[in-house]
C-alpha cells in the first residue's frame, strides 16, 4: 500500500463525494425548506444526462450540450413543481412519497419511449480526455479532475448565494417562517419554484457529468439516489453544509472501504475469511456509518439551523 495509491484513492473518494453533493444539495434544500419528500430527484439526474447527450449529438459541441442540458433540466424541474408538486406541500409525507414515486415511473417510461431502452452512446470530448501528471508517479484522469473542480466551485457558489445574497436570505427566511415572509410581500410560491428548479438543475449537472463515464439509460437515477439519501441523513436534513460534509464523508468512506478493507482484513483474518467478508462489509460500510450517526446524533452531523 504505497503513498501514491492512497493519494489516488483519496482523489477518487473526493470525486465521488462532489458528485453525491450535487445530488444531495437540491434534495436537502427541497426537503429542508419546502418540507417536501421528493423521491423523483434521481429522475432529474437522468433528465440532465439524456438532454446533454441529445444536445451534444445534435449540436456537435460538448459545451453547448452541457449548457442546453442544464437549462432543459431547470425547465423540466420548474414544470414538475408547477404541475405536480405544488399541490403536495400541504399533504403528509406518505402522499408525497407515493406521488413522487409515480413521477419516477413516468420519467423512466418517457425516456424509454423517446430514446429507447438501450443505453445511449456518449463520450468525453477530446479536450477533456487523457491524463494529468499531478505528481511524478501520480497520473489522474483529466475528466475526473474536472468533475472535482466543478463540484467544489458549485459548492462555493451555493454557499455564497445562500449565505450572502438577498435571494439566499429570502430562502432561509421562507424556510423558518413561511407565513411571515409571505405577509411581508414576498412571493413565496415563486421562490419555492425557483429553489426547486435549481435543485433539479444541480441533479441534472451531476447526471450530465456522469453520462460519459456511467450509463445513460432509463432508471439510471435510482442507482445513485439511495446513497444520496444516506448523505443527507448523515449530514443533517435541510443543511447545505451538512450535505457537503455528508457527501465527502460518504464518498471517502465508500471509496476507501472498497479499496483497502479487504487487504486490511487479510492482515488480521485468514485470506478466505477476508475474501468473503471484505466485499460484503465494504458495500455495507456507508449504511453502518449512517446507523452510527443516527444513534449518536439523530439530527445529523450539521443540523439545519432553522
Amino acid at each position, binding site marked *: 500500500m504505497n503513498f501514491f495509491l492512497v493519494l489516488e484513492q483519496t482523489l477518487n473518494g473526493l470525486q465521488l463525494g462532489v458528485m453525491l453533493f450535487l445530488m444531495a444539495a437540491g434534495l436537502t434544500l427541497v426537503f429542508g425548506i419546502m418540507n417536501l419528500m421528493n423521491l423523483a430527484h434521481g429522475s432529474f439526474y437522468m433528465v440532465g444526462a439524456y438532454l446533454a447527450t441529445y444536445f451534444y449529438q445534435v449540436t456537435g459541441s460538448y459545451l453547448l450540450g452541457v449548457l442546453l442540458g442544464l437549462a432543459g433540466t431547470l425547465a423540466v424541474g420548474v414544470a414538475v413543481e408547477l404541475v405536480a408538486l405544488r399541490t403536495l406541500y400541504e399533504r403528509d409525507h406518505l402522499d408525497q412519497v407515493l406521488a413522487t414515486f409515480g413521477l419516477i415511473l413516468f420519467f423512466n417510461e418517457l425516456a424509454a419511449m423517446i430514446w429507447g431502452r438501450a443505453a445511449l*452512446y456518449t463520450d468525453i470530448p477530446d479536450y477533456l480526455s487523457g491524463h494529468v501528471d499531478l505528481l511524478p508517479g501520480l497520473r489522474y484522469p483529466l475528466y475526473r479532475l474536472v468533475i472535482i473542480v466543478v463540484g467544489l466551485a458549485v459548492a462555493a457558489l451555493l454557499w455564497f448565494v445562500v449565505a450572502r445574497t438577498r435571494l439566499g436570505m429570502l430562502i432561509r427566511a421562507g424556510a423558518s417562517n413561511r407565513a411571515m415572509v409571505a405577509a411581508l410581500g414576498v412571493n413565496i410560491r415563486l421562490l419555492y419554484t425557483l429553489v426547486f428548479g435549481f435543485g433539479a438543475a444541480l441533479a441534472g449537472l451531476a447526471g450530465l457529468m456522469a453520462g460519459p463515464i456511467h450509463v445513460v439509460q432509463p*432508471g439510471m437515477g435510482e442507482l445513485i439516489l439511495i446513497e444520496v439519501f444516506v448523505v443527507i441523513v448523515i449530514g443533517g436534513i435541510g443543511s447545505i453544509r451538512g450535505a457537503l460534509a455528508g457527501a465527502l464523508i460518504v464518498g471517502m468512506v465508500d471509496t476507501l472501504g472498497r479499496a483497502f478493507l*479487504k487487504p486490511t482484513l487479510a492482515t488480521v483474518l485468514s485470506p478466505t475469511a477476508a475474501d468473503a467478508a471484505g466485499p460484503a462489509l465494504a458495500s455495507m460500510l456507508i449504511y453502518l456509518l449512517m446507523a452510527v450517526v443516527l444513534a449518536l446524533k439523530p439530527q445529523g452531523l450539521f443540523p439545519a439551523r432553522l
Partner: protein
Amino acid sequence: MKKKYLHALAVGIAAACVAAPALAQQKVKIGFITTLSGPQGVIGEYMKNSVELALDHLGRKMAGLDVEVTYGDDQVKPDVGKQVAEEMLKKQQVDFVAGIIWSNVMLAVAPTVTDAGKIMVGTNAGPHELAGKQCSELFFTTSWQNDDTPEAMGKVMQDQGITDVYLMAPNYAAGKDMLNGFKRSYKGRIVDEVYTRLGQTDYQAELSQLRAKNPKAVFVFYPGGMGISFLRQYSEAGLRGQFPLYSVYTVDEISIPAVKHAALGQYETRYWSPDLKNSANQKYVADYRKKYGKMPVYYGAQSYDGILLIDSAVRAVKGNLADRKGMVAAMRKADFASTRGKFSYNTNHFPIQNFYLLKTVAGPVGQDPVMEIQKTVFTNHKDSYSKECGMR
C-alpha cells in the same frame, strides 16, 4: 321432405357447434416470458423481435396450424414470472412456455410449467440445477449451461499460457458462478479476485487498485449496464492498452452501440456470433437487420431457435399437440436449422455445441465495432452437470 330438411339442418348446426370449439383449439399456443419493462427490458425487446422474425419465416404456421404467441413480462422477479406462467397455463391454455433471461426466474418458472405437463423451452438462462439434479423430460433449452462460457474463456487463457490474471465480478450468485466456471479450466496464478456491489456504477476505486497490482491480464463478468460503465471507465483510466481485458457476457451487440471504441480489442467467448457462417444464421442476421435496423444479439438468436425447435416438434407429430411423448422425442433430435449450425442435445436436454473466441474489432467505416470469431475453443462441448441428471 320438409321434416328431412329440418333434421339435416339440426344435424348440421349440432355438428357446427361441436366443430367450432375444436377448430378454435387447432392452434399452437405459445407463452413467451421475458423482461419487457425497466432497464433490462431492452434484452426482452431483442428476444421478442426474434420470436416475431421466426414466425415470419415460418409463415406464422406450424404443421398447417396457426400460431398464437402470448408475451409476458417477468419484471426480473421470480414470483412475477411464476404468476405469468400460471396465468398462461390456465387462462390461455398454452401448449408451450418459452423464454426467460434470468436464472432465478427460470428456477421458479420451469417447474411450474413442467409440473403442469407442458413443455418448457428456455431461451437464455441455464442454471446448473436444471442441467443436473432438477433436470426434466419436459425441459429443453436452446442456450447453454451458465458455466460453459467462462469455462471456455478459462481454457483460452490457460492455452495461451497467461499467468497473473486479475478477476472481477459483481457480488451475487451468478458473479461467483462465472468466476468458479473460469477457475475450473484456468489453472494459472490469480493475482486477486475482486467482487463489487451488484448494480455499482463507478469502478474508479477498483481500477486504481487493479493498476497497482500490475496483473498480466484481466478477466471480468459485468452484464448489462454495469458492463457499459466498466468498459468506459477501463478505457478512460488508460488501462485498455496496459492490461488486455477478457470477459464473458460483458460486450455484446446491445452494449456495443453505447460504448463503441471503448470495447475495441475486447475478447469474449460465446457459442454464437453474427458472423457464424451457416445459411440459417446468415438469413437470421440479414433479415433481423432489415426488419429492425439493428444487429441481433445472442439472446435473440436463442429465442429464434426456440421457436424453430417448437416448430420441429409440432411438425413431427403432424399437429397432434396431445402427443407429448412424440414431441419430446422429436425435440431431442434438434432437427431444425439452428442459427448456431448443426448441434445435438445431451441427455439433460442442454445443447452439445461449439464455443468460440470472439474479438471486438472495428466495423465498416462509419459503423459500430463488430464481434468476430477468432477460433473455436470447444468442439461439441458438454456441460459439467449432465452426469447428475438421471435421464438417458
